[in-house]
């Protein structure tokens, strides 16, 4: 009885110790998040001002200036990327959820998952080879193309998964009314899955808004603002990268302010979308 008790005590305490360690792991994750967000918010707010939002960038050596053009550039690139990615992603999602024969669907699904895992810098090199080189110029278009490739698999897979959640009885009811299958998909299944589809799209938008690696040699950055889709264009994350590595104190401060703005946009989308989709699901 006594030896058993001692063994039990040892097991009990080693169990406690391991459970506490696992709790520390979770705590460490939250601590890191708090540290990153804390620094971004604190530094960002102190360097953010109206000039930053409304002024174009100043050349090297001149104080002041802002990131107006890069903020606009990011919006243009996100819209461009979405315009290319949405039709492809949504239709592919419909194929996967509604039509795919098992082998064809799993091949496409596999390709989408693999494409989602391709490093974004490699996608950038691809966009450079396909668009920048033949066109002879860095361009907003090539950057939008790169962002679209990153976005497509995410949209396709989330659209598929939310359409799968629509019960089969709903499809059957629609078909029983005598409408053709495509009308049933467009008019009944997609509206039924809309919250999930929009959630996926918004999360993908948040992701590409912060993508930097594929923009370095597609969008390149521009000191003159938006000049057309076939010309270089600035973007917020690109400017954070450039300014953070620059030796100028003023630029580094602007990098913090830009990081603050980008975090607000990206996490804002994430939080709102998750709250809305969670409430709908209940």
């Amino acid at each position, binding site marked *: 009885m006594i030896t058993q008790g001692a063994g039990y005590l040892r097991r009990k305490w080693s169990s406690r110790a391991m459970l506490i360690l696992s709790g520390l792991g979770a705590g460490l994750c939250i601590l*890191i998040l708090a540290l990153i967000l804390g620094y971004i918010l604190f530094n960002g707010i102190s360097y953010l001002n109206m000039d930053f939002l409304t002024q174009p960038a100043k050349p090297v050596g001149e104080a002041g200036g802002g990131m107006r053009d890069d903020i606009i550039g990011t919006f243009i690139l996100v819209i461009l990327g979405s315009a290319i990615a949405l039709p492809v992603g949504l239709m592919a999602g419909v194929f996967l959820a509604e039509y795919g024969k098992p082998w064809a669907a799993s091949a496409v699904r596999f390709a989408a998952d693999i494409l989602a895992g391709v*490093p974004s810098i490699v996608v950038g090199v691809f966009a450079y080879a396909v668009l920048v080189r033949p066109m002879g110029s860095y361009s907003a278009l090539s950057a939008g193309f790169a962002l679209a490739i990153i976005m*497509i698999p995410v949209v396709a897979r989330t659209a598929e998964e939310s359409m799968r959640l629509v019960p089969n009885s709903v499809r059957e009811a629609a078909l029983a009314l005598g409408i053709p*299958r495509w009308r049933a998909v467009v008019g009944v299944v997609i509206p039924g899955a809309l919250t999930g589809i929009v959630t996926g799209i918004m999360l993908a938008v948040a992701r590409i808004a912060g993508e930097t690696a594929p923009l370095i040699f597609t969008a390149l950055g521009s000191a003159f603002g938006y000049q057309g889709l076939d010309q270089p264009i600035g973007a917020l994350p690109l400017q954070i990268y450039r300014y953070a590595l620059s030796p100028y104190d003023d630029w580094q401060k602007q990098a913090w302010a830009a990081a603050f703005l980008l975090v607000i946009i990206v996490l804002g989308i994430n939080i709102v979308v998750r709250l809305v989709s969670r409430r709908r699901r209940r």
Partner: protein
Amino acid sequence: MQNSKTMQAPSHKRGNSGTSGARRLGDRIFFNATLIFALLIVAILIGLLIVLNMDAMPAINKFGLAFLTDSSWDPVKEVFGALPAIYGTLLSSIIGLVIAVPVSLGAAIFLAELAPRWLSRPGSFLIEMLAAIPSVIIGLWGLFVMVPVIRNPVESWLGSTLGFLPLFQGPPFGVGFLAAGVILAIMIIPIITAVSREVMEAVPDTQREAMLALGATRWEMIQKAVLPYCRSGLTGAIILGLGRALGETMAVTMVIGNSYAITESLFSPGVTIASKIASEFSEASGDVYIGSLVELALVLFVITLLVNIIARLLVWRMTTVKAVIG
């Protein structure tokens, strides 16, 4: 509308076949459209491989396999080798995994097994937020906040206590492999945690109950029932994290110091495939130079492709197990 007409007059055969023909046409167009867009995803993937191969040809032709084993990078003489970049990519990813795996598994165990619902939900939510922060912002934070900390307390302490190991010798730079590894750990912790948590939650409760009924403590239950049951899923989660780490670009580029060299010391600046491409591609000129950078991208693509395929298969196997049992 058309159909209700045919229902009222079933004998009207011609109209019936006409509507179903039109309907079949609409269906066929829609189906083919979805098929084309779905196949486009496969085409992009294959196109990536072909295009990268084509653009890397000048370098492939000039260096052959020696590209992978050579460690020079000289744009003036046009001699390029990928070894330091491959070495740096693997080394920084391994450091990242060594730090991230215990933390992520701990966090996943806490969220899946221990935390009450009111705590595990916001906990998972916050960790997802960590995953959503753009890489360049983590890099900015790493460069200005983390690197000074790594230089002074961390590296000088490691150097004075573990300095007998070649890993921890040399002057503390701050930027370097260690900083890159820590940044990578921060970036892959959320993904490993999220997937592991999901895999653990897929373990049926009967497994846990059986273990507890045998008199196991809570940790023994996790260690002997939960973890072995989802081993392949957990391996998949870790390899998925490895895939992310290998291709991670911005944050690593900002803290690794960009020095094209192979060193044993974790403190010294280094380079990864992704950081090399990011920092030089827009300034490169000449077919061989650009081709070499594209070949680097190709190497990275193939490595991550293999890693991701392995991870997918492992996680899928786990989820089919889940489908069969629960």
